[in-house]
């Protein structure tokens, strides 16, 4: 019998364990504790009071923000996945080896600059007298309000997640056994139909995980909805900053943060459960 935990294995996993404890578990426990504290005269006091939870969950603005954020992140995941799929499909199946390598490189380049910088530069493009509207005015169209709209938020979300979604999809598509595609063709399945009957089911795990990553990134994002979406109505992350600013309400902000963590965990587990369903039954 092999011991389940060896000293050797423990030594190497120790840094990860310490990291998880220090930067995930302790803060999480602290956040849970914080959500029961009270604020008196703008000062935090350790306490055990459920008033923050009752108060936050009783407010309509909280639920509005919650469902708005959920809808935005879900839409971003769907839009990014749908837009990314033809790209990753072409890179995986149509491109030459060299072209594929360059595409992967190009998909990594956006990560060189800070996301905030990229969002700010979108403002230059999207504002009422920005580059796009100026170009449209030149052919006699517009101006179209793009900044401070849901459209703007979505542009920001895609800026954040699109390259990553393409990369994750690409890697799952490249691992598909090509003979499965040939076999489908051979069994009378045409080209387009094979994409839906064989390619997507084969790459399902990777495609779901790519969408999940997009959801996770955009659900907690604060930059795009504020600087491109205008921040009104607020998403949850904007609501957190608003709450901390108004009267030092850190405990109430903690309630929002914990709700977000719970939501992300639920979505992640559901997505991974769905991705692996039917495998190795």
């Amino acid at each position, binding site marked *: 019998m092999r011991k389940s935990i060896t000293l050797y294995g423990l030594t190497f996993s120790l840094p990860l364990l310490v990291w998880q404890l220090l930067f995930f578990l302790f803060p999480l426990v602290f956040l849970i504790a914080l959500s029961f504290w009270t604020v008196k005269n703008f000062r935090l006091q350790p306490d055990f009071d459920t008033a923050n939870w009752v108060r936050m969950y009783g407010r309509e603005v909280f639920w509005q923000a919650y469902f708005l954020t959920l809808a935005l992140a879900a839409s971003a995941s769907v839009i990014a996945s749908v837009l990314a799929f033809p790209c990753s499909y072409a890179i995986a199946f149509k491109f030459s080896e060299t072209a594929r390598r360059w595409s992967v490189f190009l998909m990594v380049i956006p990560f060189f600059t800070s996301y905030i910088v990229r969002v700010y530069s979108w403002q230059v493009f999207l504002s009422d007298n920005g580059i796009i509207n100026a170009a449209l005015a030149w052919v006699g169209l517009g101006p179209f309000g793009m900044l401070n709209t849901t459209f703007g938020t979505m542009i920001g979300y895609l800026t954040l997640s699109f390259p990553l979604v393409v990369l994750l999809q690409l890697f799952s598509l490249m691992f598909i056994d090509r003979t499965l595609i*040939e076999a489908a063709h051979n069994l009378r399945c045409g080209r387009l139909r094979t994409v839906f009957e*064989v390619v997507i089911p*084969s790459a399902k795990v990777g495609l779901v995980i790519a969408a999940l990553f997009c959801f996770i990134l955009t659900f907690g994002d604060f930059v795009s909805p504020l600087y491109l979406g205008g921040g009104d109505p607020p998403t949850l992350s904007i609501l957190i900053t608003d709450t901390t600013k108004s009267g030092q309400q850190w405990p109430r902000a903690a309630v929002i943060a914990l709700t977000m963590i719970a939501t992300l965990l639920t979505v992640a587990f559901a997505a991974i459960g769905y991705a692996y369903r039917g495998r190795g039954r």
Partner: protein
Amino acid sequence: MAEQPLVEFDGVIKRFDSFVAVERMDLDIHKGEFLAIMGSSGCGKTTTLRMLAGLEAPSEGEIRLEGIRINDLPTWQRDTPMVWQSLALFPFLNVRENVEFSLKMRGVDAAERRKRAGHWLERMQISEFAERNIAQLSGGQRQRVALARSLVTEPEILLLDEPLSALDAHLKVRMQAVLSDLQRELGITFVYVTHSQSEAFSMADRVVIMSRGVIEQIGAPQEIYRTPRTRFVAEFLGSSNIFAGKVSQTRKGQVAIETPTGRYATAQSDDKPVAVGDSVTFAVSGDRVQLSAKTPKGEFNTLQAKVVGEEFVGATATIYMEAADGTELRAQKSHDELRDLSIKIGGNVFVSWRADAGHILPGE
């Protein structure tokens, strides 16, 4: 043959960039035959099969199915299902869904699909696994699923690309029987690509032997075995002794051939009669060679050789020998014969055969 062949390869060439995979191939495949295409890897046998399936397009020439040119017909419009070496079963579908796949692609309705797939699941004896995942099946069961999936549309022709190579020896023999029976019962054409001589020779009606994109010989297994056409075929089958030399005399259906190891009498070739002065190569099957400690009496070709090794395969053994000039020789003998001979490695032995055991290779 008066009847039109099911498939005709007419001057088919396949190039990949500068590499020629198949070189000007002419081949007729008849209705209802079991044809094996055999050769070592890279000989073009799989490319030939893939061209027939429509997975590769010929660079030149024409492939006809029932007289109609199919060069440019995509694979999904042909009725040429293939069984892959890796089987290529869909891991995200269960057994039944795999078998139903091509019916679904043809728009057969669900009830009919289920009925027809059910019939094939039963026939291949895999009904009890119908709802299982592919990952839960054994190698032999997967093989049956792959066959059922390809045969469910009742095609005229089935293409098989080394389908048994992943199975262990025991299962391989069992599946060979399944395939032979299936082919006979269905009466459809099987085109079977393999590098295994035992698979090809035990199942096929006709065998095509390929080397470097060229067909070396087409014929019934027995015919190829007894009368190989080229040196390649004789060596590939691996059971013959091969001699090269010049014809010095011809008379009464026999020729005398001068070789570096001696002068041997051999039967005149029916396919390509040889004349004095011709350079010829002839083969002597290893099971028609006698071994003896002394020079044998009677009309034999004889040479002396040194025993270099022996290999036991079941009831027979192969004795490997070397003549004085380095020519490799071999003989298949039963264990009883060997016991009487008391063969020792490194010892000398007389190798002899009758003139009619020699076969002049007409393709050389």
